[in-house]
């Protein structure tokens, strides 16, 4: 047998993992219309439960602090450990559906995506807190050993695993085509009111399906454990290829999901072989990246350019604000921010500067997701490109401030356009998946490129100076300097005002028209493709500005600052605050950003940093359910009252001034 064929077969293990996770994703989408980013995080938790039940008989419920730790003996055998773990998966499925996804049945795809990101963050954090992050593995469950085929040795359990996945796919496909339950599920998914008339409860069906899908996730988690290792980071990331596979299957076909999963694993394996044969091939990240590129290109080519009738119309989008007096507001924010910078010291001043930078990054999502309705999970990749380019053009080309940051931020635009191309054909969650794949690809190919990023040590960034005037964050013992904070604040306020102005410009109105209904916008003469690309370019540019500001602030840029999951977190906090509003982005920066003012203040006083992700996860899901427009759309009453008072007093003063001047 050719060694090339051997490597194809060796990819069956990874392929089976992607496929079994994708089957659960397809099932969830078919029954509840949710693309569940938290699917593999739940699989991870169930796998941890299984591994520890086998190891020492401990069983931990998925929450921290409150009593959650039980002992059920000295270590269970495979079958009882599996039964207990899958029972927990079933309960988790029911609870998640009833608490999170049922209330979101009528919500926007974005709200559902954000809720599922919330579950991802929650389970990842609680997995680490309850089980620590040490990788765990477990002895084989499936028949092990090696088999020899035509002189080459091959692990037998991979064949079993692939066989199980194919059987599961066939079983699910048959069940949803031929059984009454399956047909009812399909009917309810198509038209829940029509199904209700027929006496079918869409909610109950959704519950049953969600439980089945979560048990499938748990089973996937358990079957993966002996092949891979159980840890919160790796398991959670399996969702990325699984989402790509489910996307290829259009979130509908079980058979296609199984096939695409197996093919993806085999492709990755074959690339490993080719890397050994063709030494000129780049080694870093190629198996990670190439399959995604293929998926993105394929999906882009196979999808219709213009949305089908009703396809692009969603019941409810997050509301968007209508900025009043953007330049005045920006001036007010600048004044207030400057006062805050002067009054604060040390870590809190630095955190406030971080808040400003986060707000700038948030503005990039306001343009793209708020105004145009395009979901992007690659914003931090744009920021990262600009941050690293800043280092190179400063050190290599000798460009200084302000030319260097301006040029560096523009380097994000081509990447934004590349990521934006699929958006001409893909929409909603499909686009979210593709942008997530793009972020993963940038991570694998670009941010792992040591020459460009400096590897683990990162790259040092020269301080900004203007006409000999040092504007950097540090000078001698002075750190963090007010002057740097003011510089950042100025840039952020100008960007904020421009984003606000964009809202009422012809381009902005075109964006909002596309957001509301692509077909109608196209019929009205709006150039949908051009407008979408403009939005991606603008958004990438603004994210790039955020990236260079971050680089100046940290003085050293390194890849972890721009990893895939940072984009997920950014989307999460901006969504909670209000993704359709400038105020939402600003609020997210100050109150919610991971290292922003409020979080830093709370952590400094209470040292509760390790619970931050859990709180973020719960808040995200709660916001998606209760306040999909974000906190900024309906701020807390005391804040509203204060704002009205200030506005009234300002208007009165203005009137007096007008009367006096006339």
């Amino acid at each position, binding site marked *: 047998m050719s060694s090339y064929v051997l490597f194809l077969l060796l990819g069956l293990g990874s392929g089976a993992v992607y496929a079994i996770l994708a089957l659960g994703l397809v099932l969830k989408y078919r029954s509840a219309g949710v693309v569940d980013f938290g699917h593999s995080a739940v699989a991870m938790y169930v796998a941890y439960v299984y591994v520890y039940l086998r*190891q020492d008989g401990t069983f931990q419920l998925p929450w921290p602090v409150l009593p959650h730790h039980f002992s059920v003996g000295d270590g269970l055998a495979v079958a009882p450990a599996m039964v207990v773990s899958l029972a927990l998966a079933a309960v988790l499925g029911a609870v998640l559906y009833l608490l999170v996804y049922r209330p979101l049945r009528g919500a926007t795809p974005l709200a559902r995506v954000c809720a599922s990101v919330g579950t991802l963050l929650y389970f990842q954090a609680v997995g680490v807190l309850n089980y*620590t992050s*040490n*990788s765990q593995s477990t002895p084989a469950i499936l028949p092990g050993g090696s088999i020899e085929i035509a002189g080459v040795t*091959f692990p037998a359990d991979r064949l079993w695993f692939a066989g199980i996945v194919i059987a599961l796919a066939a079983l699910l496909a048959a069940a949803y085509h031929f059984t009454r339950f399956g047909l009812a599920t399909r009917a309810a998914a198509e038209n829940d009111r029509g199904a209700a008339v027929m006496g079918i409860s869409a909610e109950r069906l959704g519950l049953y399906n969600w439980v089945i899908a979560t048990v499938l996730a748990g089973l996937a988690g358990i079957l*993966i454990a002996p092949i891979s290792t159980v840890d919160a980071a790796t398991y959670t990331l399996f969702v990325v290829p699984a989402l790509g596979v489910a996307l290829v299957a259009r979130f509908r076909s079980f058979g296609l999901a199984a096939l695409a999963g197996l093919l993806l694993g085999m492709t990755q394996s074959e690339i490993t072989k080719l890397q050994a044969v063709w030494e000129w091939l780049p080694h870093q990240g190629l198996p990670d990246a190439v399959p995604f590129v293929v998926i993105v290109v394929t999906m882009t080519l196979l999808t219709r350019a213009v949305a089908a009738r009703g396809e692009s119309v969603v019941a409810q989008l997050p509301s968007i604000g209508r900025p009043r007096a953007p330049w005045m507001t920006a001036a007010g924010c600048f004044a207030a921010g400057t006062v805050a910078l002067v009054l604060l010291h040390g870590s809190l001043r630095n955190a406030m500067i971080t808040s400003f930078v986060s707000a700038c990054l948030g503005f990039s999502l306001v343009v793209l997701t708020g105004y145009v309705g395009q979901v992007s999970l690659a914003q931090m990749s744009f920021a990262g490109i600009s941050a690293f380019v800043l280092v190179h053009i400063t050190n290599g080309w000798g460009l200084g401030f302000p030319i260097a940051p301006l040029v560096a931020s523009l380097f994000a635009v081509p990447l934004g356009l590349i990521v934006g191309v699929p958006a001409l054909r893909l929409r909603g969650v499909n686009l979210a998946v593709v942008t997530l794949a793009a972020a993963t690809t940038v991570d694998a190919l670009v941010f*792992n490129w040591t020459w460009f990023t400096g590897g683990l040590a990162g790259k040092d960034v020269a301080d900004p100076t203007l006409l000999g005037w040092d504007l950097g964050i540090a000078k001698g013992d002075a750190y963090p300097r007010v002057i740097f904070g003011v510089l950042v604040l100025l840039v952020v306020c100008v960007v904020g005002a421009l984003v606000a102005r964009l809202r009422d410009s012809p381009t902005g109105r075109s964006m909002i028209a596309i957001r509301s209904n692509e077909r109608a916008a196209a019929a009205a003469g709006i150039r949908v493709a051009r407008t979408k690309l403009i939005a991606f370019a603008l958004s990438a540019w603004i994210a790039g500005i955020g990236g260079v500001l971050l680089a100046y602030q940290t003085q050293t840029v390194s890849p*972890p600052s721009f990893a895939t999951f940072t984009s997920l977190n950014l989307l999460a906090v901006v969504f909670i605050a209000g993704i359709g509003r400038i105020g939402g982005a600003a609020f997210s920066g100050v109150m919610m950003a991971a*290292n922003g003012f409020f979080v830093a203040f709370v952590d400094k006083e209470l*040292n509760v940093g390790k619970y931050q992700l859990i709180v973020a996860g719960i808040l995200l899901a709660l916001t998606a359910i209760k306040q999909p427009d974000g906190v900024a759309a309906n701020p807390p009453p005391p804040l509203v009252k204060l704002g009205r008072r200030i506005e009234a007093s300002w208007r009165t003063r203005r009137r007096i001034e007008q009367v006096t001047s006339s």
Partner: protein
Amino acid sequence: MQSRLKAATGALALAGCVALAMTGASVSSAASPLGAAKKATGKPIVFGMINLEAGPVTFPEIRQAAQAGISYVNNYRGGLHGRPIKLLTCTTDGQPATSARCANQLADKGVVAMLGAADTGASGSYPVYNRKKLSVIGGLPFTPVESNAKNGAIFLSVSVGDNAAVTAYAAKKLGAKSMAILQASDNQGKYSGSIIANVAKNLGLKTTQIDVTSGAPDQSAPAAAAAGYDIAFVETPGSCPPVIKALRSTGFKGKIIGLDNCASPPAIAATGSVINGFWFAQPYYDIDANKPDARLGAAILAKYAPKNIALDTLALAGLSEVMNLQQVSTTIPASKLTSAGILAAIKDGKVHPNFMGHPYQCTGKMVPAQSASCDKWELIKAVQGGKVVTLNAPWTVGANYYKP
């Protein structure tokens, strides 16, 4: 990158737990290794610590062990010149921005110096330390930032010392002529893999570097690519058991060496019998070794650490740095208990005792490309019959073969 940072999670635990329990039972006896109580009083000397305890990868055991060491020092050694040590901690998620925030917060609180821990966001925190003139005592050199920090002193060497030592052992004692390095496909893997390849080439080994894709759940393909080499070096800290199992199940006939965490008790249990004959290097004695330091360390952890502490290399590093700090404080006057004073005493170029490890000497050149590391000595250990065995050999060095 983060999955790679389990590089130092070590193989001391199961036997250690047993020993710990036994030692714990004997703490109350007259022959307690803890010695006579000598309580510290007065105004505490405040140290800071940033540790990776949020996000997908966490190492709480470093903080737990360091805190246990501080409790011991405060209660049995009279603290530092009679004053108790107080530890302020901040949790990082490994993001440079978070570590920078933590560093600023701790600096605000006026810490005297930092106790090192696991901080993968060091590129964010070290610039703050530099500006605030804070020294970093101990910790784990996960990235080149802390490995070469002028204001740091690290009592062990990860990535260079351990990898080079076991590679040298493979070349000299196991008779290897060729080596396949299975490295994680991220920046950390690339960094460690290049060090191993450099050492192997300087030892005359034919080498190849094979990326183990961090996002791929099954490592059979990279394992199969190692076929035909004498040695497979497993440099995949996040996925040791599956890689070792995949090597054997795809018919790899050579010897397997690698990281110490591949031989942790859970990893041994998960890998099964194919782990036997796995070689690795560690900078510390086993905690059940018949050595005074090991007995004292076990007693300290039994008395003060949480019962479920992960007893790995990182935990011992946390305990060791506190004990080393206390030891060096006895060599300087109380007035020198400052950030600069403590660091100067540690980096005086003399040989100092290193708790549970080989004596350290900070010369700035002890470990190539890790100027902050003060110890290059390692013990070669192997898994035999499902248990970790320290080979009957003295401390060994491989770092000299690393020529960056």
